[in-house]
């Protein structure tokens, strides 16, 4: 498991993440999944009821899970006119593509990696959002085709923590002109800044919180699980964890004063959890449910680590 580390200077409050642009072209991956059985197969492989996506423009997030109910990746599934756009974590792209390929047996399904041919910009904050008022009328993960500087782009409504965001995806060849228009009156932030931002928002990331060490309920992804949809890979385990209240750990936001050496959290001499993402003085981690209360102080080496809030709150 990777332990992510953000910038080592500044703090969350100093970062203004309203009306900013971040280039997520490499941070996220994009697959085009084609074929008459595509949505049915993806529905059988992931946690949300994708068969509700019946028309172009609709979208939802869904968790790809192993047969042990552990997280492979959190996907964005978007119904295009001529196929499905699947947005993955960048580092998980190959794993997701291979997973879909492995389970394509009798189905009419083909997946194509379009990451290299496309760009993916995220506009963060309500002011950025106001530039495209037409997107106000659609639900999260749904999208519209819009034109920016004469280039046709896909604009997906999304959220990071509670912040409204707009993801702009378009052809790589059009990236320069689209960026020029957008950056004429908004600032660009680096991926390092974005990493600190997403940690501050309690947003789980692949390789840190989204790994096969954790299940989607622990990772705060319950909104992307449909409990009545029927079978998908890992469904039996996820349903049992939820029905019998067997979730052992919770994703929480953490703060500390100094710098952490190590990542194991303790309550007295008992193991209490693990830090999975770190920035300067704050981070994310999974703690045992009995400790998952705001204000609880745990130990990480010599440092005191305080639970600020549950990530899914």
């Amino acid at each position, binding site marked *: 498991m990777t332990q992510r580390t953000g910038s080592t200077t500044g703090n969350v409050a100093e970062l203004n993440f309203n009306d900013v642009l971040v280039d997520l072209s490499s941070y996220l991956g994009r697959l085009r999944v084609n074929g008459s059985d595509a949505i049915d*197969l993806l529905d*059988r492989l992931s946690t949300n009821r994708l068969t509700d996506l019946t028309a172009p423009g609709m979208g939802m997030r869904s968790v790809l899970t192993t047969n042990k109910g552990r997280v492979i990746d959190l996907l964005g599934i978007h119904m295009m006119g001529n196929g499905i756009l699947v947005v993955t974590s960048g580092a998980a792209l190959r794993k997701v593509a291979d997973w879909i390929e492995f*389970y*394509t*047996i*009798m*189905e009419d399904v083909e997946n194509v990696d379009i990451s290299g041919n496309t760009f993916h910009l995220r506009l963060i904050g309500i002011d950025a959002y106001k530039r495209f008022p037409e997107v106000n009328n659609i639900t999260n993960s749904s999208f519209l085709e819009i034109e920016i500087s004469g280039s046709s782009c896909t604009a997906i409504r999304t959220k990071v923590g509670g912040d409204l965001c707009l993801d702009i995806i378009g052809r790589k060849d059009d990236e320069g002109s689209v960026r020029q228009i957008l950056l004429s009156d908004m600032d660009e932030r680096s991926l390092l800044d974005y990493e600190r931002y997403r940690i501050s928002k309690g947003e789980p990331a692949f390789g840190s919180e989204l790994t096969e060490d954790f299940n989607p309920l622990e990772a705060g992804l319950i909104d992307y699980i449909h409990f009545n949809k029927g*079978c998908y*890979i890992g469904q039996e385990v996820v349903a049992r964890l939820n029905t019998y209240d067997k979730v052992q750990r919770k994703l929480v936001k953490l703060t500390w004063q100094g710098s952490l050496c190590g990542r194991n959290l303790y309550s007295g001499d008992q193991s209490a959890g693990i830090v999975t993402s770190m920035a300067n003085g704050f981070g994310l981690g999974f703690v045992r449910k009995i400790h998952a209360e705001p204000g609880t102080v745990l130990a990480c080496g010599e440092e005191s680590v305080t639970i600020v809030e549950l990530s899914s709150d």
Partner: protein
Amino acid sequence: MATRTTPEPLTITISEEAAVHVKQFAAAEGKPEADLRVGVKGGGCSGLTYVLEIVDGGPGENDQIVEEHDVRLYVDKKSYIFLAGTVLEYSGGLNGKGFVFNNPNAKTTCGCGTSFSV
């Protein structure tokens, strides 16, 4: 001198009782001459789900054909990888479950028995 025997290639077989029920289902669907497609698709709690389908269009281009007890089974090549060695049986009686796949490749099965992992 010891004799060495070549092992039989793994195939898919159907029990006599299962074959009888296939013919009954085919007749009930108004297709008494129809055949049975056996396959696997991705999904289900454990990863892979069995597929049984009465078909009357003949085999596909990539199908393996197994004929036993007057029933023809069509198995596409990719499904065959997961089903080689399987015996398709029929479990009747009070606790019966209908068609049962005795699949030596299945490491785990889910509660309902229709999903498995390899």
